[in-house]
Structure formats: C-alpha cells, structure tokens
C-alpha cells in the first residue's frame, strides 16, 4: 500500500490537469458541437506566454498568470468562436474535426514564428515550487500543491455555474440545435462565445499548470496531454463533466502507479507508460458502453443546409472534354521533360519527393475521398511500409522492388487489422481511435530494432537500376500512376459506389444488401496498402528513414493538407504533395532575399502555419480549394468558349449552372412546396447562388 501510494500521490496533479482538459473538451463539445482538437494548441500558447512574461521579461508570476490565463486564454477562445466555430456548429463532423486539426498545427507555428527557439525550464505558478509539504510518510511539493488547489477551485466554480445558473441550461440547449434555441428567443451566439471563453480559460490554465513538468515548452507534449484528456472525455461519453473529472484523475494516477510496478529496463516497459493513455483510449472507444450507445450530435434542422457541389469534372462540356484530353498528355510530357532535363539536381529531388508524397496522399484520397471517414494513422501505415521494405531489403537481401510491394501488402494487412475492431466507429470516434493507433505505432512499434529501429532508423536502398536521380524520378512517377489508376478504377467501380451509398446513408445501404463491414475493411486495406507503397518509396528516396518521419504530427498535417486542396480527386493529392515540398522551399528562397531575410529559421513555422490555416478554407469549400477554383474556371472557360462561338451555353454547362442556381425547371412538380415545409427530410429546397460560397 505504501508503495502504491508513493506512486499514486505524484500522479494526482497529472490527473487533475488531464481532468481539467477533459472538462474543457466536453464543455466545448456540449455547447458548440465541436470536438476541439485545437485545445492542445490553446494550452501551448498560454504556456508560452507565461514563460515569456515570467522567464524572459521577469514580470511577477501574478502578472504572468493574468496575462496568460485570464486574458490570453479566454481571448483566444473568443476569437476562435467568433471567427470560426460559431459558423460551423451544424457543419459535418469532418469539417469541424479538420478545422480543429488545422489549428492544432497552425497555432503553435505562430508562436514558433514570432519566437523561434527552445523555451527551457518553464516556471511554475507556485510561489515556492520547491517547498516540500509532508503529511505522514508522504509528501508533495509546492508545484503539485498549486495544481491541486487551482483545479479544485475551478471545478467548484464550474459546478456552481452548471447547477445553479440559467446560463448552464442555455449552454446545454445550444448544442442540441442552435437554430431551435434561437427560435426560442435565446441568443445562441452569446452563449457559445461564453462557453468558448470558459474553455479557453481552462486550456490556458492547464497549459500553465502542466508546463513545469516538461523540460521545455513544446507543442508535441501538449498533443500527448490532449490524447490523455480525450481518453478521459470519452470515458465521460463526451457528455458528463463529473465523469470527465473522474476519468482524468484515474488516468493520471494509474499512469504513475504503472511506473512503480513495471520493470524499468525493457524497451516495452519504457514505451508502455507514456502509451498507457492511448491504450486506454482505444479500449474505451471499442468497449465503453457510453460510446457504444452514443450517436453523434446532429442538428434536427440540418437538412435545410445546401448539399456540397458536384465535382468540377461533371461541369465539363464536350468541347472542354476534348480540350483536356489533348492538353493532359502534353502537360505530363512537358512536366516530366522539364523535371528530367532542365531543373538542377536539388529541384529534381524536390519534385520527386513531391510525387512520392502525392502517392502517400492517394491513400487519403481513397479512404476519405470515398468513404468520408477520417483516419489519423496514415503516416503510421506509410512508416510500416517503409520499415518493412527496408528490413527485407537490407536484412534478407530481397529485391527492393519486391520488398516495396511486400511493404505495401504488410501495410494493407495492418489497415484491415485496424478496420476490423473499429467497424462500429464512424466520424469523430473513428478519427480518435486511429489517432490512438498512430501514437501506439510511434511509441511501441517503431522503436523496436526489428522494425523502425528507433532514432537510428532503417536503410531503404534504391531498387537496382534506379539509383540515379532521374531513373528514380521515373520510377516514382510510374508508382504514382499505378496507384492513381487503382484509385480511379475503384472509385468508379462497385466498391466506390457502395462506399458512396454508405456515405449517403449507411442504414439504407444495408437495406439494399450492401455489406458495410466488407466495404469498410476493403477500403481501409487498399488505403493502407497505397500508403505503405508510398512510404516505402519515401524511404527509398531518402535512403534512411526513422519513426520520426511518420509520427502522428505528419498524419495530421497530411490529412489537413489533402482535405484543403481536394480529397475527392487525384489532382488534389498531387497538389498537396507538391505544395508540401515547394511551399517551404519557396519560402526559404524568399528568406534568402534581403527584404525577407527575417524569415531565416522561421520558414518551417511559417509553412506549417500556412498549411494549418489553409484548413480553415475547408469549411467553405469541402470539395477542396483547388477543386473549387477549378470548377469556377471551368464554368468561366465554358462560357467564354460559347460566347466566342456565338452559341447559347452548351447543354452540360447550362444544366449544371441552372442547378447551381436552384432553378431546375423540370422539377417544379411537387405542387405547393409543402415538401419543403415538412422539415427535416434531407430534401433541399434551394441552393445558394454560389454553391461553394463566394
């Protein structure tokens, strides 16, 4: 018992901070319907501000606390609500999730941009952090004490707010349907602003309280904190604040107790303790009854929102079709010619890397583009493919091309293995489960010497005959082309149509005889397989690759990037791949000029900021920014072609354009428009003049 308690007591402050974040997550989820992935970023910002005020500008701790927690935290929450989340309360889960993930990448980059470098030895909030308080044979220090006291005070305040004030009641109503709440005469926006400021305060407090436990203030630490808190929030069914508190406390304490009972020397044991929250999260998502029973919050009035616009390709008339058929091969040949013979070696490498990234991104096009589901472990599949190929080629002397393919097959098998237990999960819960899998892969699998070999990494040789940069570029193009054709064929084939049906209505898809389990496992395996092949190509291009190249941060960055450019089309993957390589390169070229020399070591931060913030366009253009602009220019070109020929607009474009204006003339059959007034049926009365927004 003494042994147990001596480990359990230091766990209490961790548990309290987890609980604080979990309560903040549940609070925003309940009041705004947004599962706020940016919470970790908010905590990070306040921790950095507190550090700057106290350690760099030598202000008093109280001033630092007021600046970081009382001012900056709620202010950031208010800004996020005002500019973003208020407008997407009823948006699909994916939109909210991607916006949050984009912020999770973008916001810490702002701090890094204005304030590059490491922030070591974060100060504690406690006036006497090193003082030790004894009780019996146990003791806690001043820092732990301040965490416990602060969290208890905040929790008591929250209890009063929800139990005894009308505001608490309104906050709960807003979640159900902000539109209905407004019909009842409540200003939903004001309630939501308050909730976001409150949760911003909680995030800030959590960040400042937890910072002293880390060696330096680093965004990755806060992502780990976020996952532990997510586990506690899931334990609470994303609904109950007391359960979130209990879950966080339990997790923090048990994680510390585990340290006391595990042997210290094996790699499994050292990796297992930090992974404990991830394992708990997976188990909760799979087995916890509060999750099993829960349906995702959907607005009963959501049916009146306009549907997403059709793909740009459907707007092409016959003339344009002919034109693109001619231009496309010319473009490809010109692109390859320029890459092979005109640009310097450095740029040849970059463009090859872009195409290899595009191959990996096709896995997102396959999974998210077809099934609409979000996986946050695509980088882990890529890593699995790379390490398998590398180990087979170096340890077993297998031909590298064969090793690449086996790498893909192993990743595909892993994809199926991930899909099978998570069959029931969709949307947010699937994303969270894959997030936990990604963290487990990074912490438990990739450090093993037989797979990722820790920080040293694995050598992945280039295939024989493809050692030269030009030859490897051609190989990368060929691999990409094969994967792209596979994605296109599956998308227009039976599997793609089944997935499209399931995305529209899973229950209706089942009642016509579609086996949803089979479709989901198939697409997960295909997607993971493509990621595995792409990852193996990536390793082969770099020569050496380690687990750090495939951590969860990249999974998040990649999916945010692909969804921003366009997840439904192969072009989207290409654009994302090239952008990932060229944006930092162009920025650093810019930093080389005298005007922009301040960019210097801030290039990475700035490009991550741009990628993260790019995700904010996703809410307006769920088809992707590139796809949106393509449709706009296609419509423009078609109109121009018709004007030149002196014709009326061609049939295809006319249809699409009419439809976009909500004037489909053949459809005014339902009589008196009663259908529309009937309410929640997913029949859409009219489309906005510009389906994708202005």
């Amino acid at each position, binding site marked *: 018992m003494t042994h147990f308690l001596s480990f359990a007591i230091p766990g209490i402050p961790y548990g309290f901070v987890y609980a604080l974040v979990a309560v903040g997550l549940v609070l925003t989820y309940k009041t705004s319907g947004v599962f706020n992935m940016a919470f970790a970023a908010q905590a990070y910002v306040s921790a950095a501000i507190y550090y700057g005020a106290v350690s760099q500008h030598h202000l008093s701790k109280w001033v630092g606390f007021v600046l970081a927690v009382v001012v900056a935290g709620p202010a950031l929450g208010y800004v996020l609500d005002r500019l973003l989340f208020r407008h997407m309360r009823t948006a699909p889960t994916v939109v909210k999730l991607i916006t949050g993930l984009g912020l999770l990448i973008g916001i810490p980059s702002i701090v890094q941009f204005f304030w590059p470098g490491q922030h070591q030895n974060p100060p504690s909030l406690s006036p006497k952090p090193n003082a030790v308080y004894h009780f019996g044979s146990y003791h806690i220090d001043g820092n732990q004490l301040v965490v416990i006291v602060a969290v208890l005070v905040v929790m008591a305040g929250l209890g009063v707010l929800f139990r005894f004030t009308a505001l608490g009641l309104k906050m709960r109503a807003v979640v159900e349907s902000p539109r209905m709440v407004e019909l009842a005469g409540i200003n939903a926006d004001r309630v939501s602003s308050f909730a976001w400021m409150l949760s911003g305060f909680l995030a800030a407090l959590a960040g400042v309280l937890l910072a002293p436990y880390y060696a330096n203030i680093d965004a990755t630490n806060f992502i780990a904190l976020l996952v532990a808190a997510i586990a506690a929030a899931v334990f609470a069914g994303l609904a109950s604040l007391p359960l979130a508190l209990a879950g966080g406390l339990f997790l923090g304490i048990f994680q510390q107790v585990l340290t006391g009972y595990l042997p210290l020397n094996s790699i499994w044991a050292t990796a297992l303790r930090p992974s404990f929250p991830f394992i708990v999260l997976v188990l909760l998502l799979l087995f916890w009854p509060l999750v099993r029973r829960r349906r995702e919050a959907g607005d009963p009035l959501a049916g009146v929102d306009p549907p997403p616009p*059709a793909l740009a390709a459907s707007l092409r008339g016959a003339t344009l079709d002919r034109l693109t058929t001619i231009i496309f091969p010319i473009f490809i040949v010109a692109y390859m010619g320029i890459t092979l013979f005109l640009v310097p070696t450095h740029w040849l490498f970059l463009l090859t890397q872009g195409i290899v990234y595009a191959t990996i991104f096709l896995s997102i096009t396959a999974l998210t583009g077809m099934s609409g589901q979000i996986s946050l472990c695509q980088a882990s599949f890529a890593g699995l493919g790379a390490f398998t190929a590398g180990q087979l080629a170096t340890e077993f002397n297998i031909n590298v091309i064969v090793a690449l393919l086996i790498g893909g097959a192993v990743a595909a098998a892993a994809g199926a293995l991930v899909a099978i237990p998570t069959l029931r999960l969709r949307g947010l819960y699937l994303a969270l489960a894959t997030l936990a899998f990604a963290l487990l892969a990074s912490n438990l699998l990739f450090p093993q010497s037989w797979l990722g070999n820790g920080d040293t990494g694995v050598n992945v040789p280039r295939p024989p005959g493809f050692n030269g940069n030009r030859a490897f570029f051609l190989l990368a193009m060929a691999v990409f082309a094969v994967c792209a054709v596979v994605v296109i064929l599956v998308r227009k084939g039976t599997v793609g149509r089944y997935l499209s049906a399931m995305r529209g209505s899973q229950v209706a898809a089942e009642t016509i005889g579609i086996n949803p389990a089979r479709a989901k496992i198939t697409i997960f395996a295909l997607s993971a397989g493509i990621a595995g092949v792409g990852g193996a190509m990536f390793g082969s291009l770099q020569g050496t690759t380690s687990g750090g190249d495939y951590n969860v941060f990249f999974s998040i960055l990649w999916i945010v990037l692909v969804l921003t450019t366009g997840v439904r089309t192969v072009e989207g993957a290409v654009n994302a791949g090239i952008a990932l390589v060229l944006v930092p390169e162009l920025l650093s070229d810019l930093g080389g000029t005298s005007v922009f020399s301040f960019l210097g070591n801030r290039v990475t931060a700035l490009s991550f900021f741009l990628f993260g913030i790019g995700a904010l366009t996703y809410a307006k253009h769920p088809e992707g920014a590139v796809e949106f602009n393509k449709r706009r220019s296609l419509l423009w070109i078609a109109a121009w072609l018709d004007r030149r020929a002196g014709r009326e607009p061609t049939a295809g474009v006319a249809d699409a354009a009419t439809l976009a204006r909500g004037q489909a003339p053949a459809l005014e059959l339902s009589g008196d428009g009663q259908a529309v007034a009937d309410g929640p049926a997913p029949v859409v009365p009219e489309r906005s003049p510009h389906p994708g927004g202005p």
Partner: protein
Amino acid sequence: MALLRASGISKRFGGVVALSELSIGVEAGEAVGLVGPNGAGKTTLFNCLLGILRPDTGTVTFDGHDLSRMPVYRRARLGIGRTFQRIELFTEMTARDHLLVAERARRGNGAMWKDLLNRGDPTTDEQVRAAAVLSLLGIDDVADLPVEALSLGHGRLVELGRALITEPRLLLLDEPSSGLDRMESLALAQVLGRVQQERGTAILLVEHDLEMVERCVTRLCVLELGQLIADGPTATVMGDANVRRAYLGEAV
C-alpha cells in the same frame, strides 16, 4: 406457411415499452396495412423485422429462415426491401445511380479485383432493369439529377424504386405518402397495386392516409402502445369499435 412471421417481439427503450409481445404474419403476395397512432411502435417493428434494431425477445422468420442472428444486409438479400419514414437517400447520387447500386448489391457482388480490371461499370442488363423501374415509377425525366435536387415526393419514389429493383418478396413501406400531394398519392397507390399483382410482392404498409390504405391493402392490423389490438379484413377492422376509439376517432 406465412412468408414473414414475427412472434413475441418485445422492445424497450429505457423505461418506454415500444413493442410488447407482438406477433404478426404476412402471407406471400399479400398486402397488409399497419396503422396506429404516432408512437404505437410501427417504425420500431420495421426496424426489428429488418435487424436495424435487435428486439429484446421474440423471433422473426422469413421464408423458413430464422433471421434472429442475421445482419441487415443478409435479410435484405433474402428478399426484404424497405423505405423510410424520414427518407434516406444516397446524397450526391442520381436516381439512376440509386437503382444501379441497389441492383448490384442485392446479389452481393462487389469484389475489388473486378473494379481493378475495369469491370465495375453497370452492365447493359442492369441499365435496362433500372430504366424499367424508373419508367414504372414515372421518374425517367429526373433520373439523372442528383437526388438533392428532387422534391420530397420524387425522393420517396426513388426510395421505392431502390427497394423495388432488388425484387423483394416483401416490401416494408413506412408512410410512403407523407409529404405527397393527393395526385402523387393516387399515382403511388396505383404503382403499389401493380407491383403487388404483377410481381406477387407482399406489402406491409404503414400509413396514416386511410384512403390510401383502403385502396392498397386487403388486411389491416392496428397497433396501439406496442400491442396489436385488431387484425383482419380491412372493412371489418375499420368498423371495429376498439379501433375507432384508439385511432380513428369516434367522428369517423
């Protein structure tokens, strides 16, 4: 032997008893109406028959097969089709796509290797069958528009077509006429009559529009608070005093 037989079905949601010890059967080719006040358990019964919900007690057999442990999609392939009260369409797909995907799915085809050999496209046979159903329902002219652009009435017809093309032996219809105007309801009743007579499809029809019920069915069941309070030929049941009190209202 009855085509569909549900015996002793109970379903509770927390403290609410939606169905209690309910038994109902449908003969092959028979058209049965199921009426009752809102909340009587009609949609819950449909969900239990199709496996979308698991009943707490009771068994469902269809054509001699015990359905108790069968997932929804296998029940569908055995020949049970349904439509939904709140229509469930595949967004972003056209009406024709709805039928084509249903025609493919009912046989359980869909191996990915066929897609990779570019053999996933709809076959001529499938196209012909889809066109036949579209013209049976009279929605050929809107067949190639995305369903979001259709009126609720057309949406219901697309749902019906999607169920019909799977050639069900039993069709579960959940308030097909709600949201339809009078002319559309009449047209729908005609289509249902033809389907039942020409294809021998059995129909279980949940409907509030009693005119439509009388037009379509020969047998009527009345559900109240999860229990069957009447079951018999339409005219007899309509005249039943209990039924009038529970559902129809004395003034009828």
